[in-house]
């Protein structure tokens, strides 16, 4: 890779991480004021895991995620306007106002869903990998899931199937130390979740999930391995979520043991900015990126606020290809 291309790529990683952080900060604040209905699960603190993973993929590679869904599409390159509009329940939302915060899924960037039943995305990713393999497209399917999902049967069944059929799948386990309020050590008898992969004779990596370059390097290697037909790969990113399981619930349910200070001292954005500056990137350029992202996020919110809500009849479309009947009492 030429130095220029490497620089562009590095700046893009920083841009995407900034986009996630600023999107999440704004979403949390307007959720607190009641502008976003429902529960909001934010990705702040985990940006390097998502961005490093997605930067290692081709644009046409598939991605499946989970209820902590905002960071994944942004990491894969999605535009912010439809994502923010979705959070506000607007018709212009990426899911037409039917999915909301737990399902920010932009199929135009290769997403096949952000599914909010823990572990349920793993079989879907295995199936997408099967479809890619059968159609000979050379695509891989990457699945994000958390530490909690590694105790779900669906995750094990999906991984087993991918392994026994040598499917081009990458299972990125974002180990953020807590399944809602439950510390991972209370839920899983192994120290490294990557150990789960051994049962499926699956290649695995453990990476520093706060280091976007490290995540990118691991997933690049995983993607090359999977694409070459050797089978799926498990990547455990050791990371940390800054907010509670869902924000603005009134009290933090996460029983943190003081470790939050250590993790925040290794903030993925700060770490990366420092690295870029050490490598000679002009700090003013990074400041410009940050202020451009601030404008982008503000523009997304304005777009969302200016957008219409869906009409009642739209609750009856997309159940099937053809709409289902709407009862008369809703037609008035």
């Amino acid at each position, binding site marked *: 890779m030429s130095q220029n291309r490497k620089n562009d790529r590095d700046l893009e990683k920083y841009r995407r991480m900034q986009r996630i952080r600023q999107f999440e900060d704004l979403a949390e604040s307007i959720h607190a004021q009641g502008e976003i209905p429902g529960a909001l699960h934010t990705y702040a603190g985990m940006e390097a895991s998502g961005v490093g993973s997605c930067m290692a993929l081709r644009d046409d590679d*598939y991605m*499946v995620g989970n209820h902590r869904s905002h960071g994944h599409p942004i990491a894969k390159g999605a535009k912010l306007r439809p994502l923010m509009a979705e959070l506000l329940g607007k018709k212009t*939302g*990426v*899911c*037409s*106002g*039917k*999915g909301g915060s737990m*399902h920010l*899924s*932009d*199929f135009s960037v290769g997403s*096949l*869903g952000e*599914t909010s*039943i823990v572990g*349920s995305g*793993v*079989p*879907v*990713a*295995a*199936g*997408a*990998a*099967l*479809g*890619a393999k*059968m*159609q000979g497209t050379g*695509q891989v*399917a990457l699945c994000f899931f958390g530490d909690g999902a590694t105790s779900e*049967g*669906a995750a*094990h*069944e*999906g991984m*087993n*199937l991918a392994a*026994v*059929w040598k499917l081009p799948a990458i299972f990125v386990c974002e180990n953020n130390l807590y399944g809602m309020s439950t510390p991972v050590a209370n839920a899983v008898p192994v120290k490294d979740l990557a150990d789960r992969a051994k049962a499926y004779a699956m290649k695995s990596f453990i990476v520093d999930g706060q280091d976007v370059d490290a995540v990118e390097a691991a997933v690049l290697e995983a993607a090359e391995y999977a694409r070459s037909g050797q089978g799926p790969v498990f990547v455990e990113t050791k990371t940390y979520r800054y907010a509670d399981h869902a924000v603005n619930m009134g009290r933090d349910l996460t029983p943190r043991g003081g470790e939050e200070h250590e993790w925040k001292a290794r903030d993925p954005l700060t770490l990366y900015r420092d690295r870029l500056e050490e490598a000679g990137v002009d700090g003013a350029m990074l400041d410009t990126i940050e202020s451009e992202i601030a404008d982008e996020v503000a523009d997304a919110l304005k777009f969302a606020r200016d957008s219409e809500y869906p009409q009642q009849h739209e609750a009856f*479309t*997309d*159940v*099937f*290809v053809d709409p*289902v009947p709407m009862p008369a009492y809703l037609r008035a």
Partner: protein
Amino acid sequence: MAKTTFLDAIRQAQEEELERDEKVFMMGEDIVCNVFGTTTDFAEKFGLERVRDTPISENGFIGAGAGAAMVGMRPIIDATISSFLFPAMDQIVSIIAKSRYIYGGQAKLPLVIRSCMFYGNSNAAQHSDRPYAMFMNVPGLKIIAPSSAYDMKGMLKAAIRDDDPVLCFEDSTCWMNKSELPDDPDFLIPLGKGDIKKEGNDISIIAVAGAVPIALKAAAKLEEEGISIEVVDPRTLVPLDREIICNSVRKTGRAITVDPAHQTCSAASEISATIVENVFDALKGPVLRVTTPDTHLPFSPDIEKPLYPNVDRICAAARQLMDARQTVSA
């Protein structure tokens, strides 16, 4: 023309669609060895890439069907026995039924999940389910339950070509039913259309799956007693052809719903409620249900077999309805 069994109609439908469209493939437990005769010689003909034996992992491979469908394939998933759908409830309900909706129409899931209802032969409660009604309560799943070889072939081919997920419930009591089958490779019966299996004037019997042949036998017996029976087979349970049901009951004024499922919240219950809500003014008596009582299915044959709908129970219900008329007119 030679007659073909219900089981062979399934095989023919699959074979023709596998030949027609390279995106169609099959997966399931032990399909290569052809347990029931619906995949005869498929492995040799279509290869192991397109005819895939899976691990015993229903939630995994049914969910993988969803993923494959989302990226352009058209899987036929053979879940063997319908009781085996339960381990896959997660993927069927949360992923397959809801993905098109929850992502605002971005996801497309053209897939068929086949399973047989294997009841009436001492397989005990865990292998004898008729669970379509449970899935009728989940929007987003089309559900078919054909009763003849003719319907089976035309509807399964239509299901494979449909762009929505379809659950196909195959009643094993119909396996040996025979029909003459068209050899037109585009023979399709549209989903959502019921069929009048026999015309009559006094009572409409709306029967589901394996209850249809029993209702036809009961109808023949009742005709001898001077009671004229119309037998309506909805064929598709979702979307349900409410019009054909209501039109029939409007004509006869009496209705019996017959369903091999357990009574509470059965397909028979939904059909009964549809009749009462829409055709109440035409009814000359109550809408009766002939179903399987709300107990489990025991192993021991003598106490299992009488639990299902049978000719005698249907005839008794019909006589009760006709007596009700006489009581009212007297």
